[in-house]
């Protein structure tokens, strides 16, 4: 097996005096969907911020695609091939759907390529095509989530980081979003996803980690984790496994 696409190595991070991660290490293999599970305040979102350079770890290293990206400014990390679907989507609400998509391609300058990708992405999310000129902020939550994913795809990333992609969506849209994540993955994009809803996430993932108060409590192939009785205790914040 080749080197993993993303690797966190012995990360210790802090919010002021509070330590969030304790020697956190994990790997995301190229081509997979890897999910990071955990309850509130387990440090999931901070892991994502650490990868994206929004939060600088106190110690430890982040490797992406063979390069050390620890402490790089976020725009540089994005340029190196990581896309982001932030928590709560964070669309540019006053800009149109199309402008949001083009913002996703901000790091690129190959106009024909961008146009082709726009077409490809709209093929994946046909609903967005009808709304290209609409302001992003006026769409429904599910449509906004799709736009957030489409926007991330426009940068042609090797890896997309998704922070709670199903949060706040109606059950109908949750299934749709999960299908789309799989579809994106089938096109060759690696997915690193943070989720609170373990059974849903493990249903589409290849590999999973369970984070508990800043430490990996459990890890394994998604299918195995799904059958593991300890997982419920872990992500519900029960006693350490």
């Amino acid at each position, binding site marked *: 097996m080749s080197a993993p696409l993303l690797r966190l190595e012995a990360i210790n991070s802090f919010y002021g005096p509070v330590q969030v991660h304790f020697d956190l290490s994990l790997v995301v293999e190229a081509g997979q969907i890897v999910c990071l599970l955990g309850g509130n305040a387990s440090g999931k979102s901070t892991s994502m911020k650490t990868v994206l350079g929004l939060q600088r770890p106190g110690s430890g290293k982040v490797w992406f695609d063979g390069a050390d990206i620890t402490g790089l*400014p*976020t*725009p540089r990390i994005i340029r190196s091939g990581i896309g*982001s679907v932030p928590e709560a989507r*964070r669309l*540019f609400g006053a800009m149109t759907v199309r402008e949001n998509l083009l*913002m996703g391609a*901000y*790091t690129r300058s190959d106009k024909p390529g961008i146009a082709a990708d726009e077409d490809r992405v709209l093929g994946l999310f046909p609903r967005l095509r009808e709304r290209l000129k609409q302001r992003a902020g006026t769409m429904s939550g599910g449509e906004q989530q799709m736009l957030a994913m489409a926007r991330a795809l426009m940068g042609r990333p090797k890896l997309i980081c998704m922070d709670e992609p199903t949060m706040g969506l109606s059950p109908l849209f949750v299934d749709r979003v999960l299908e789309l994540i799989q579809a994106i993955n089938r096109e060759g994009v690696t997915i690193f996803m943070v989720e609170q809803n373990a059974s849903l996430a493990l249903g589409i993932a290849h590999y999973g980690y369970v984070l508990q108060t800043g430490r990996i409590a459990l890890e394994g192939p998604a299918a195995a984790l799904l059958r593991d009785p300890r997982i419920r205790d872990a992500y519900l914040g029960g006693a350490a496994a």
Partner: protein
Amino acid sequence: MLGAWFDYTVNGFVIGNIYALLAVGLALIYGVANLVNFAHGSVYVVGAYVGWAAITYLGTPLPVTLLCVVVVCALVGVGIERLGLRPLHGASRIAPLLATIGIALVLDQVVQLIFSPDPRAVPMQVPDWRITLGGGTIGALDLLIAGIGLTSAAVLYGFLRFTKLGWAVRATAQDSDAAKQMGVDTDRVNLVVFAIASALSGISGVLVGMYYNQINPAMSFEATLKGIVALIIGGLGNVPGAIGGSLILGLTESYGIALFGTSYRNLFAFVLLIAMLVWRPNGLFAARRSLPPEPMTGTFIARSRPLKVPSWAVAVVILLAALLPLLDAPYLLQIGANSLMYAMLALSLTLVAGTVGQVSLGHAALLAIGGYASGLLALDAGWPVAVAIPAAGLITAALGTLLVFPAFRLTGHYVSIATLGIGEIVSLVILNWTGLTRGAIGLGGIPPLEVFGYDLGSVQGTYWLCLVVLVLLALLQVRLLNSHLGRSWRAIRDDSVAARSYGVSGDRYKALAFGYGGFAAGISGAITAHAYSYINHETFGATISILALTMVILGGLGNVVGAVLGATLLIALPEAFRFLAEYRILIYGIVLLLLIRFRPQGLMGTV
């Protein structure tokens, strides 16, 4: 008659265009940096002087003049962002705002040192013809200004709408974290925005110079204020709104002058500002009336552990201060008395800005109210000075609270803007209410300080009176801070929502704070009036408000001992280095900047 109205309309549009060039930049900066840039008017002055210098020394034709202005001002803007503001990333949100005030002081003083404070005439660079239209006239310069305004708006629109960098600017303004996650280098976006905004501001300065045929370094403050008024009318961060707001402001002023006369012009602007802040703080063009939740509540400036000063040390210092007159050094005593009067003002501001977290930029207005109240009571009503001074304190407490009352629901930046506007209104009312205040002539022959027959008009007398009053006020303030009231004040500052949910009514406690603050500042103003025997509407200007703010930041916000120390240092030190007198304001500005950057908790620590 109709022709005159046509002229006023043209004039209003022209002035509106000039304001628009200022306000658009302020809106852009507010968008990406969440900051009201108080140095904006200073860049405008730099632009005016660069234009003047280019024409006078190099004989540049108009396009080259404008190019020089654009280049120099853009560089100044880049410098402001890179050196003054970027190092403050991650600091509390009021820090950059205060930094821009420091930058404004520095820029204004540098311009003044280079070009002297005297007004200059900017040579007209357009042909002097006017066309007559339906009884009114339009000149070439009017058309030029309108043309530049429209062109700038069009270019800006194109930039924001159709260029990649323009999208990045808009995306950063909406959500800078999300923009970063799209690969946008938001630092660079900030830099570009400051460059564009500053260039536009500079052009505005040159055009004003040509329009009024006069420039001087002191015009920066008014430009900043007018830009902010236009910005608030249009809605903070709303670029098209800023243009609309500017035109409304220009026309309002022009028609106001037509109806009431020139001296009312600024009064209109600031009353409009306060009305907007009270009724439509989101601007005329926003759909929502309520303000978006401002992330600025919460931790204020810098948390720190205040330095503990043992009470015996304080007692020793007070004793030493009381013995100072025995030295027989009248000059030293004069400085001492000045420091003490400023210390009273600082006590007042450290409570309002520090303990309650309402960063007031118009605090000197309270001095003016106190000074005029006491002076008029003594002069016109014949009250004894010893009665007039405390009465002035009470009047200032009541009037000050009443004036700020409409602004109580505002937070953060809005409080600073509102208090700045209220301060200007007070000064303009004093200027225009000739029947009561004697207007521009000022209040002369104010009786000297005396308490029940004891003449305190001498330097020693003034000094001792100030010392006694200051000690009493400080003791009262310490007592208040340690009481239930003090805890409620800090609760409102640290988390107004939580405070409310515990049943602490924000408005009542804010009123008490402004009331006490008004009392202390009113007494200070009253004593100053009697000590000087003459005051006018400019005695207590915006510079003093800023100076007071620098004092309390230097001492440590909310810190009583710190306020006295800050006042003493900032008044006494420039006197000790008299050869630096020319650079006094410059030094204040630099002190303010260094403090915010390196010691935001001040010398004695925040409380």
